[in-house]
């Protein structure tokens, strides 16, 4: 009798767990509810939203997906595509309808313009990119204050030991200690014109092959923190991994890295057919500051939270969704 009861009990517990898990699963059948986005009506429309592969892009992508769902639209998430050029190609070829891009990346990678010709003012840079990209069939919605530029990071210990807190100091060190100066980075930064090649040119230090440790992007911050294989490493200013690995951001005193303000890029046809997309993303962009987004990234990279949960929380806290 006791055995049968415990078996029934176990079955009931399993069923309950399964139901609870089913209820918890997945992000997205939220229909229009409270919050400011509920006032925008995009029901009946379907959008494919993409993103690049790093945490910030995944979080921003999730914000976009959930924001659109709150307006009643159906959303196809195509996040975590590796490589800027691949996401952009997906956009221009029609596989994607929109994704968050950065003004600096638009200038150097998509418009293929020289880094040295870029306007120093972030708003001017954004305006020029927006104007020029219209010819490519890509529309840029409002720019966010969020400036996620490339930067070089160094472990706090090495920074104190060698007294390196700016890029110029690193350049001096690299030139005087050719054997010891080395850089951890992933393939994209190593080959982009506005990546390491541009930095080395601006600061005037050489980058012999032995001074480069090419790694998978996610391995760069931990290896930079270990400071064995490299002295400095490729990071971005809002990267959660910076604080997770106790890295110091080297000051870009000669402004080798220009501005990378985030903005939603949409295929022109999609925007023309759905002009209300601007009403969805412009208010969101206004609230995306560098500090706010860094905090979101840290929640994922340091706190271990899921991007969907972080995105939902942020949208709720800012009154976009209920």
């Amino acid at each position, binding site marked *: 009798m006791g055995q049968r009861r415990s078996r029934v009990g176990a079955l009931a517990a399993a069923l309950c767990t399964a139901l609870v898990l089913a209820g918890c699963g997945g992000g997205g059948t939220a229909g229009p509810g409270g919050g400011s986005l509920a006032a925008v009506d995009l029901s009946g429309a379907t959008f494919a939203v993409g993103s690049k592969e790093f945490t910030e892009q995944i979080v921003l992508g999730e914000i976009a997906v959930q924001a659109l769902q709150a307006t009643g639209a159906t959303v196809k998430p195509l996040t975590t595509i590796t*490589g800027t050029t691949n996401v952009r190609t997906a956009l221009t070829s029609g596989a994607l309808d929109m994704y968050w891009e950065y003004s600096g990346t638009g200038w150097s990678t998509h418009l293929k313009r020289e880094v040295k010709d870029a306007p120093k003012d972030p708003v001017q840079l954004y305006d020029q990119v927006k104007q020029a990209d219209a010819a490519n069939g890509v529309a840029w919605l409002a720019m966010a204050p969020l400036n996620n530029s490339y930067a070089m990071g160094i472990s706090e210990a090495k920074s104190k030991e060698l007294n390196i807190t700016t890029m110029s100091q690193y350049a001096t060190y690299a030139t005087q200690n050719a054997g010891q100066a080395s850089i951890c980075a992933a393939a*994209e930064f190593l080959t982009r014109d506005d990546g390491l090649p541009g930095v080395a040119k601006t600061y005037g230090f050489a980058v012999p*092959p032995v001074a480069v440790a090419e790694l998978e992007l996610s*391995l760069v911050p931990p290896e930079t923190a270990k400071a064995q294989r490299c002295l400095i490493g490729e990071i971005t200013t809002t990267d959660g991994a910076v604080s997770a690995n106790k890295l110091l951001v080297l000051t870009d005193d000669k402004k080798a890295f220009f501005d990378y303000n985030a903005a939603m890029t949409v295929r022109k046809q999609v925007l023309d057919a759905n002009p209300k997309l601007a009403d969805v993303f412009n208010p969101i962009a206004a609230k995306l500051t560098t500090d706010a987004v860094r905090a979101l990234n840290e929640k994922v990279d340091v706190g271990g939270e899921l991007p969907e949960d972080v995105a939902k929380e942020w949208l709720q806290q800012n009154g976009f969704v209920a």
Partner: protein
Amino acid sequence: MTIAVEQLDVGLRRRTALGWLVTPAVLVAVLVALWLIVAGRQLDSIEERRVNLAFIGVAAMEHLTLTAVSTLLVLVIAIPLGVLLTRPSARRITGPALAVFNVGQAIPSIGLLVILAIVWDVGFWPAVVALVAYSALPVLRNTMVGIQQVDESVVESGRGMGLSRLQVLTRIELPLAVPVILTGLRTALVINVGTATIAALVNAGGFGGIIITGLVQNRQLVTLVGSVLTAVLALAIDYLGRVAEEVLRPRGL
């Protein structure tokens, strides 16, 4: 993962001298064609950083070193172990030992590299460990199969002639197993050339660096160059392996 067991069809597989020249000629032709394609294009700044002789040369050396060292380690680990596992006294550990090697091959190499990066380090030696784990199984199995497929009657006649167990092993079983073992080794070499492309993710260099850049930056030419070079290297090593098999095949087989 199928075992490539060489068919011992004596005499039929002997090629003419000219036949042996076909593969190198094809590989050289492919390289020439690749060069012509690259030379005919104006490379942009990103392509230039990877498709240049200096970078390719260094990548080739790194790739060869990774392949050579990992295959040598596989040879040293898997062949003696394979011989041991065919001994009657090892009957009980054969199952578990094979399971370990099966797992080594089943774990995706990139997953293994990440685990090693977390618990140990990145760089050349973790990459070699991942390569050894992946390619040890074929060599092990081929060694075991090679020895086990030696005709029982030949072994018995050896014992009958008064040879000790060890002498039977070294004078009869191993020489007869050499073709199969060498095939396994050749398989491991070719596997390692292909798998070594992921070594670029952990700062161990190789052709993978070229391929990864091409993929991330969406530059088809770069991807093509990296992939073709890797394939040519794999085929060249396979060819050299066949030559070695031919040369090292014991007389009378």
